């Protein structure tokens, strides 16, 4: 019978990404509830040395395939390796990151393993010995409880939502043969964006601007506040469609659906498709001149005022507080 809670570790440039520790901690919790092992699959190049680190976050056993073909990530190499080790060991539950990489890999695994998956989950638990996954649908306009009846039960975890918990386990490392066949895709080039830029999908704090910003040059005041807070700068569809900001910064139903600890909406009226994309944020601040703007219905803290005065003042206050 299938058993064990598995994770697919996500690496970038030879190091684990934070979401990997979130998955490991979550796998530990689920494994304890089931009385089973938590295992990890690590596919990378030159990673044997760091694989054991996952023991710190509750992983009992780490299956490692060390091969130059895994870096940078390609769908075929990773999907082949993960599907093989998961199948050989008859895993019951498999957690994957709902990151750009995970969103490419996980559905390919669903196809290879002929199973089902709950995408982009914000909560997972065990009910009647099976995985029960909770996830936003319609960009968060409603939620679904997903049950996967096939094996393994796959769930993709939204980054930045699940807590990291340390609990020392063996983290015993075992190498496996990924059995790579012909690889049909390759990465020709990795074009890095500006160093230190935080993606809105992974930010703890997002400072977002909309039509009320009036022009691309005015986003400088949001950049400055974001710099002080260690935040990412997001944008509404109106701001992106006007060409003021990059498409990758768009928050909403046709952009990224985000759930940071703090979302500061500046000059965003709150179209329903925008609200859908950010209303699962822990705290929401709205700065808008129009007291009737729908964004205030979602805001924990509302400031009815001119954002061009409030935002620079807030930047100064935060500088003072954060030293």
């Amino acid at each position, binding site marked *: 019978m299938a058993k064990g809670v598995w994770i697919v570790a996500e690496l970038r440039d030879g190091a684990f990404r934070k979401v990997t520790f979130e998955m490991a901690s979550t796998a530990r919790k689920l494994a304890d509830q089931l009385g089973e092992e938590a295992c990890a699959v690590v596919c990378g190049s030159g990673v044997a040395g760091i694989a054991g680190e996952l023991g710190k976050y509750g992983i009992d056993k780490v299956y490692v395939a060390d091969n130059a073909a895994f870096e940078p990530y390609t*769908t*075929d190499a990773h*999907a082949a390796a993960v599907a093989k080790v998961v199948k050989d060991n008859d895993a019951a539950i498999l957690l994957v990151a709902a990151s*750009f990489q995970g*969103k*490419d890999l*996980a*559905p*390919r695994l*669903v*196809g*290879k393993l*002929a*199973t*089902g998956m709950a*995408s982009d989950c914000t909560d997972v638990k065990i009910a009647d010995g099976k995985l*029960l996954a909770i*996830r*936003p*649908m*319609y960009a*968060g*306009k*409603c*939620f*679904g*409880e997903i049950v996967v*009846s*096939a094996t393994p039960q796959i769930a993709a975890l939204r980054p930045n939502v699940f807590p990291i918990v340390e609990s020392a386990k063996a983290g015993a490392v075992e190498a496996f043969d990924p059995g790579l066949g012909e690889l*049909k*895709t390759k*990465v*020709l*080039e*990795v*074009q890095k*964006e500006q160093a230190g830029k935080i993606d809105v999908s992974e930010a*703890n*704090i997002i400072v977002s601007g909309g039509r009320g910003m009036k022009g691309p040059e005015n986003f400088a005041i949001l950049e400055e506040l974001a710099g002080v807070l260690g935040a990412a700068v997001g944008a509404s569809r109106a701001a992106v469609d006007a060409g003021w900001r990059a*498409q*990758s910064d768009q928050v909403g*139903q*046709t952009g990224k*659906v985000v759930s940071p600890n*703090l979302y500061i909406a500046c000059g965003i009226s709150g179209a329903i498709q925008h609200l859908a994309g950010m209303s699962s944020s*822990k*705290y*929401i601040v709205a700065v808008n001149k129009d007291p009737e703007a729908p964004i205030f219905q*979602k*805001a*924990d803290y*509302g*400031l009815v005022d001119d954002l061009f005065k*409030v935002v620079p*003042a807030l930047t*100064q*206050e*935060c500088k003072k*507080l*954060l030293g």
Partner: protein
Amino acid sequence: MNIIACVKQVPDTEAQIKVKADGSGIEEGGIKWVMNPYDEFGVEEALKLKEKAGGDVTIVSIGPARAMETIRTALAMGAEKGVHIDDPALNAADAYTTAAALAAAIKGLPYDIIFCGQRAIDDDSAQVGAILAEILGVPQVTFVTKLEIDGTKVKAVRPIEGAQLVIETSLPCVITATKGLNEPRYASLPGIMKAKKKPVEAKNAAALGVSTDAKSKVAKMIPPPARPPGKILCADDTPEGKAAELAKLLREEAKVI
């Protein structure tokens, strides 16, 4: 070139979504149905490719009778023909079953490249394109923002966190489209008139020979958790005063900075 574009009809982004009292689904009354915005990017790219390389574009869609409007929209944009899979056992199927049905329909057609949206904005699963690629045994490039095709060589750009990847693969393949790939065209009036006469083949699960046994299901739908009422900050009426009050609340009450 034989080009396929898969489309899904979904509620418009401005639609209010209400969950049925028993949690079995959403209330469909009053919803305006549109082509999934990410699928529109796929259809547009399919048409651009056809205009450059020649060939034709076939639209494949799963959905109830109303999904025909979305197929006609794609035909009005310029696609040649459609396949409408309409079967109550498939119309709200899970991702694997959906992809298997699409694969069965596509296997019966000549194809060099298949476009899908990176996700449908209703269930937000973002799975079907990749599962379809796996079932057909062809490579995939997902979340594509730029595409170049030269002979059978495919060069695509996709974003990841903090970087853009330039990926090379070969035809046949599945491309999932995201915002940035192109600006979808509007259907012209002559296009709309012509679309009415373009052929659309009807299929169901039995005709496709696919299983309708779900691998996963939405056991229950629930409304989003209600947010507690917020405060309007007004201790001091100046922007500076409000900003100071906010910074203090974020630090001491919310503890998020």
